[in-house]
């Protein structure tokens, strides 16, 4: 288990170092997230009530668009120097590579969210609710499910020539359950959970996360070797 963790942490640290070195990439990803918020804000108009109602959905959409760039980059660094084959030839299990990449992507997407969420709060006139700890849990669980699927499908798309186009086509339909639960849960907690339905969305997110993580761990070996 110790050797497995060493390889998981090696993959995660390598990806994060490469990401840190390519500063332009993280700036571009974060800028895309902020711009998405801005553009949707203009499209909705100046009505504060409408902006507040739409805030959770648009926030998750901005994370979605930014995340796709993060996932794409995650395997691009393996393809650039022909490193993917070398990576697959190291001893150890395939799931270790998946978990390493998942952790690195999770860190980067959370970093993007740390910048994008305050921007959303300001642009959409949303006050920090009293239920912010629960909101934070929803965001973390939603991000975990999103990044799990993103890491998995970007691995699948990386083995194809039209990977840039294929990734969103594969990922977006599969994200619907996670996105729905994350948006509804976030909206509920942002409004102080007036309807009392936030807990159900939270439980649904936990179920989706467990299913997606287990499925990805089992299937990753087959898709990365395809």
């Amino acid at each position: 288990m110790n050797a497995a963790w060493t390889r998981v942490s090696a993959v995660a640290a390598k990806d994060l170092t490469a990401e840190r070195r390519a500063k332009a990439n993280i700036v571009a990803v974060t800028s895309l997230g902020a711009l998405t918020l801005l553009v949707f804000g203009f499209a909705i108009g100046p009505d504060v009530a409408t902006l507040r109602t739409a805030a959770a959905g648009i926030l998750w959409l901005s994370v979605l668009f930014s995340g796709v760039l993060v996932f794409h980059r995650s395997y691009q660094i393996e393809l650039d120097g022909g490193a993917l084959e070398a990576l697959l030839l190291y001893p150890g299990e395939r799931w270790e590579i998946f978990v390493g990449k998942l952790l690195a992507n999770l860190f980067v997407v959370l970093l993007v969210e740390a910048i994008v969420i305050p921007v959303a709060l300001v642009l959409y006139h949303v006050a920090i609710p009293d239920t912010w700890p629960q909101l934070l849990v929803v965001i973390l669980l939603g991000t975990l499910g999103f990044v799990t699927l993103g890491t998995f499908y970007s691995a699948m798309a990386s083995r194809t020539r039209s990977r840039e186009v294929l990734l969103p086509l594969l990922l977006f339909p599969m994200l619907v359950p996670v996105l729905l639960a994350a948006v509804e849960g976030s909206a509920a907690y942002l409004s102080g959970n007036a309807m009392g339905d936030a807990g159900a969305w939270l439980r649904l997110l936990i179920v989706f996360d467990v299913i997606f993580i287990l499925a990805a761990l089992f299937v990753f070996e087959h898709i990365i070797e395809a």
Partner: protein
Amino acid sequence: MLAIPAPLIQAEVARARTLAISLSGITRRFGHKWALRGIELDVAFGDLVVIQGHNGGGKSTLLRVIATAIMPTGGTGRILGKDLWREAAAIRAESALLGTTNGLYEDLSATENLLFAARMLGVRQPAERVAEALRQVGLANDAHERVRAFSSGMQRRLALGRLLLQQPKLLLLDEPFNTLDADGVALVSALIAGTRERGGAVVIVLHDLARLTMPPSATYTMTAGRLS
């Protein structure tokens, strides 16, 4: 159907276990094209086997199959005594492939690249081993430079450094002398000799046999996916 007597099968398996490589009827198809057609190959421990042939003949595909980078379409094989189909992970632990690409991360430094390899390989005392490997491949002074700034020859040397960390029982080299200067060529020769001295086997794909400084145990030619 003609039944093969069990003792004969057992004898064949026992013979295959004593070989570094034992392939029988290996095929590999990419789409409609057959890259490998019924490959039969035995390589003993300590052997240096050279594979030559025209471009597109299937040489690199054969190395990748032996390294378990890709699985064959058909056939059977034992690599280092382990079943090619069922024990790929165990084969990877004891073999190393230097392909036509170097498999390096351009945004990482030379040291970071080798430290990553060392951690993936489970190398003990990784920092010391990496420093030693960099010294051996002549990149000690460029240890903290990013690989992106390296020439193609320096990148090839760094890829050789990764093999030094691993010290595999089976070394698979695909045109290893490409872009290397005289010192680099000597480095590859030392790597081959070192592997054989440890009792390991080496399979090398090479166009220019003159660059090999030691006589091979056997030389094969690959043409249209067939080995002769």
